[in-house]
């Protein structure tokens, strides 16, 4: 497949990926309180994912630095990025912060966010693994039937 149709396929695939969410948002009636809760949830999920994956990438810098002369600059840069995420989370979830959901304080909110992330990530990972296996099962069964 040439480059241009490939890009078009990926663009349409990206749109299809968000299509079910768009349809559900349109057909499910959302009140004002739902909208503000939705925004708080988006921001909490964004900050938590950003911070946790940044920490994960710092750990993975071990591998990268082994293949170079153990440079410090990428480590320091990535650590700053993760610290920024932590500071933003604390600042925005402290008393009166707009990211505080049903929790009493910043620490409770951050811990809730981490557990929330685990459950959400588990749901997404299960969905991805199912997709990969189902695709394989279908592809291998087609080869088998041909024989």
């Amino acid at each position: 497949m040439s480059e241009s149709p490939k890009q078009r396929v990926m663009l349409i695939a990206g749109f299809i990926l968000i299509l079910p969410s768009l349809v559900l948002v349109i057909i499910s009636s959302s009140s004002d309180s739902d909208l503000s809760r939705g925004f708080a949830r988006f921001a909490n999920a964004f900050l938590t994912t950003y911070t946790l994956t940044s920490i994960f990438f710092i750990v993975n810098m071990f591998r990268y630095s082994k293949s170079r002369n153990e440079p410090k600059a990428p480590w320091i840069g990535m650590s700053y990025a993760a610290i920024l995420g932590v500071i933003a989370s604390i600042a925005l979830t402290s008393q009166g912060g707009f990211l505080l959901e049903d929790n009493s304080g910043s620490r409770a909110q951050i811990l809730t966010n981490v557990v929330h992330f685990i459950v959400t990530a588990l749901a997404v990972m299960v969905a991805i693994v199912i997709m990969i296996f189902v695709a394989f099962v279908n592809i291998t069964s087609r080869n088998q039937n041909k024989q």
Partner: protein
Amino acid sequence: MQDEIRAALLLWIPLAIASLGMAMQFRRQHSLQNLGKGFLILGGSLYLASFLTVPESPSAASSALIVAILPALLLIFVGLYIATFAGDIPVKRFNRKLRPLGLLLFISGLALLEAMNWYDEKWLPSLHWEGETNKYWLIFRPTFLLGMSSILFCSSYVIKHMGENRNDASRNLFLLGAFSFGFLLLGLYTDNAYTTTDQFSTSVWLATSDLFGILAGLGLSIIVFTLAILQYERKRPGLGNLPPPSNEQLELAADVIRKNLGGEENE
């Protein structure tokens, strides 16, 4: 205070140990990888047991949920594993006749997961926590169904247009995605054993926000990681500006070449 220390010791520290174990899987040394596996099993087991050891912690509800859905997830994964490795692949591990059994286990797993939501029966794993619906179930189910329908629709389209003669695979992925989306729609219009339509509508809205938040957070951290490495790589001298290799480096290169070429010394 004592409750908080107990929660830290029996839930949060095990969770940190499990995360460390997971990160250690990316190290090259096998000894560290094995140690990481040990950390993962130990930390993961303690975390999963936290709904028994620290039931007073609100976060323990998440471990109760994971334990409750574990049988369904095991059926799904064992079923798909058997169905895949009984197919026509070089690393075939199961007899071809076991393939329908694998598919049956997969469908039973999905059916169990849905039955748990629609029926509150004694023989089904309970989704209650402290007398109410486990709040993490209201996060897991809509995220799982929404994630599954989005990913399956998308992969169905990509497989059809990127591969050749993949119509069957594409159609089956689409059908499974449609089932998943159908259950989401059903939840929006019908009460079930654990949620009302209003609750489910709010949960779906929050799950959508969650998924977009995760995608945006993941995207930003990947961009930052790429920039951190790119900045360093750009400052490194080009190949033409490098000093000539030292004797030690030449020895090392010769050793690697010798090992890879093989054969006798005098050839």
